[in-house]
Structures are given as C-alpha cells and as structure tokens.
C-alpha cells in the first residue's frame, strides 16, 4: 500500500527542482565568450571613434599631446563613458617608448581596479612629426617622432 507521505514528498521534490531550474540559467563558457566578444567590440569601436584626426578635444590625438601633471583629459573620459554601455567600466592606459631609457613604460590615465571578467581592446596611435609628447607627467619631454601606443580600456560587467 502506498503512503500519502511518499506521493506528497515526490511532488514537493519535483516542484522545488522545477522552480530552482526555472529561475536559474547555467552559463557555459561558450556563451560567456559571446558576451566578452561584444564587450571587446565596444572597446575596440570606442577607441576607433576617439582616435580620429578631427582635432576635437575628446580625441586621443588631442589629449595625449597635452597630458602632463596639470592636464587631465576629462573630455576624452566623458566621451568614452558615453560610448561604452552603462554596465561597463574601463581603464585607459598608454604604453609608450621612453626614448631616454629605450624601455616600454605605462602611463595610467585612469587607475581603477579591474575585475576577473575584464577584456582588453587596444589601438596604435602615431604622434606626427614635430609634436612632442608630455608623458609621464614629470614633465620629461619625449622627443620621439613616431610612437606606437596600445591603449587599453578595461570593460567589465
């Protein structure tokens, strides 16, 4: 003879399992990659847009020629915040060749702490002949005529 308790227990277990799976989506690594690809694309596109030769104040060309101890490129950072979705945050870094030491050095325009779900996008930037570059902000002038600089906006969810 079956017991009523057994049937009720079975129904209860099934109900709990159903509601548990209903409210949860198991994200596999493959689908996570899709999100990362879109985030990296946002970063890459944003760098492409601000790496223009229009001479506007919120472009990389304009900002990097002026970075020193007193100049912070607020216009550039504001534009990056507009370009990237609200749910992302970013860091902006400049990798450059110090012509005195001949070493690759990093200058952090922003210094936020990336999370474990960070992706990186970068672009090269050419400073034209005759324009000096004022980084790091210790006022040592880099006399490099052509400087490749990967820039890394870190975006995380």
């Amino acid at each position: 003879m079956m017991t009523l308790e057994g049937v009720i227990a079975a129904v209860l277990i099934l109900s709990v399992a159903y509601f548990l799976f209903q409210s949860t989506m198991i994200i596999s690594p493959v689908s996570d990659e899709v999100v990362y690809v879109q985030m990296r694309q946002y970063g890459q596109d944003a760098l492409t847009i601000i790496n223009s030769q229009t001479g506007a104040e919120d472009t990389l060309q304009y900002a990097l020629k002026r970075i020193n101890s007193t100049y912070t490129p607020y216009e550039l950072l504001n534009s990056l915040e507009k370009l990237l979705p609200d749910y992302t945050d970013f860091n902006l870094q400049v990798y450059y060749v110090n012509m005195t030491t001949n070493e690759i050095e990093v200058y952090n325009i922003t210094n936020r702490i990336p999370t474990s779900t960070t992706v990186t996008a970068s672009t090269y930037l050419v400073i034209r002949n005759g324009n000096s570059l004022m980084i790091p902000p210790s006022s040592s002038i880099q006399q490099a005529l052509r400087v490749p600089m990967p820039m890394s906006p870190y975006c995380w969810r």
Partner: protein
Amino acid sequence: MMNNYTSRARHKHDEGKLSLDIIVGLTIFLLSFVFIIQYIPTIFASERSEIALYPLAYRISALLAEDPGYWSNGSVNGTDWENYYSQPSVEVRPGLMGSEVNVLDSDKIDALRNFYLSAGEGEIRKALGLETPDREFGFNISLQLLSSDSSNPAYSTNGSQPLLLIGDPIPDWRDVARYERIIAFENTTTVSDISSRVDTPNTVNYNFVVTAPVGSFVIVILDRNDNQSATEPWMRVDVNGNRVIDVYGNDTIGLFDLTTTINQLSGTVNVDMQVHNVRGYVISTDAGEYIGGRIVAKLVVAVW
C-alpha cells in the same frame, strides 16, 4: 481443508497483478524522466539556438561597418554599389563604410534603405548571406542612439524618419542574436537638422529653434576669427531665456554641449546665441551624439 482451498484461491487471484504503489511510482518516475530530458538542455545557454546565430550577426555587422560593399555585372565591378544596385543583372553586396572603418557613408545608408524598399526583404537577405538551402534567417538592421537598448529602442533619425531600419520587427517569442557596433557618420551635415557655420569678427546674434528631446545640440568654437585686429572673443547663450553660457577670451574656444540642458525641457526650445570674434559651427541632430568631432550612433544587427 476449506482453509487450504481458500488460501490457494486467494493466492491464484493475486498472481500477475501489480500493486498500486508500483504503478504510481513508475508513473511519477517516467513523468520526471521525460521532464528532465526535455528541460535540462534548455537551461544551458550553450544549447540555446541564439548562440549559433551570434557569428552570423557579427559577420553582417562587420560587413556593414568595415567594408564599402561590392557590385558586379560580370564584366565590370567596384565598391560604389550605391550607384548600381537598381540596375538589372547586377549582383550587390551592401557595405556602409566610408573613408575609414566604423565611419559610415550617408549615401550608402540611403542606398541600403532604398534597396530594401525597392528589391524587398528576400533580395537583402540573399545579399547579406542570410539565406541557406535549408533556412531563411530573419533579420533587423538599424541605426540607434547610444542610449538605446533592446527593451526601449531609440532610432537615429533625420527629420522624423529613422535613418536606417530594415527587416522584420524583432520577435520576442524566439531566440534572437543581437550584435552592436559603434559607428560615426562621415558627413555631419547630411545627418543634422541644423548645421550652421559661425564665423565672424563682429558681434552676431543667432537663434535656433529645436524640439526637445534632441539627440545632440553642440556649439563648437574652433578658434578666433581670422581677422587678427578684432577684440577678444566672447559668447553668451540663452536657452528659453535662461543664460547657460557666458564665456570670454580663451574660455570661448572649445566644445559646448547643450544636449542635457535642452533635454531637461519639453516641446519647442529657443536657443539664442550671441558671439563675437569666433570661428566654429552649431550642430543639432537626432541621428546621434557628437563625440570625437563627429556624430556617433550604434549599428544594431539582430538575426533569428
């Protein structure tokens, strides 16, 4: 004797019968088994069909944003497909890129919209590679403002019409892959409601009437006027009678974004501008935001 007979008869009567416990237990087990087999795969995102659609959406967005397109009639070909898509016996692959990657040509945007209207959805599907022998993919391609999202789409417009909105409405009852690219318009003037040049050594008044909300309203002062004998530059701007900008000297040179100020109001908004000895321009547009010296929006590709 009688008892033995009754016992045997009862035993014979019970043979070949299942107890109710087993039947109910089997039923619950089978129902659970079928439910789990059908349900478990769908909770893994990797098994969902839209994952397989993402490469398709990415490919179309890359073709549109990073390629100028292509046309051929068998003997002649080129990338200016916007001039040939309507001719017979011409194969077309649309691309929207202008002079650089991520910078879209307004003529090609118009051509894609007109190509869709004249040739129909099937031809566009074929041209974008969204038709295979065993499947026709649904698609929706549009230009949207940066603040737009899937639940509340805000399209880039010029006048009252979306600059680009082709394909079927995005269904909410099936899996859809959506991929976005950030783009700029090559020609600012063609996607602006107001594109006014400001260039004077004297004091001049300008009045602009816009309807809030606007995608972007910016005043860009590049420099002083070329007339070197003029006095120091200055600028005053009133929005509906309230002074919002009052700058003098070097503070006059720069970008002044009035988008937020105007969008805090509603209906018709009057922007009165008084300038002296400046060179620049004023842009009002619903096509996107003014970033990096260009109007910027999103190219959104949805495939299902």
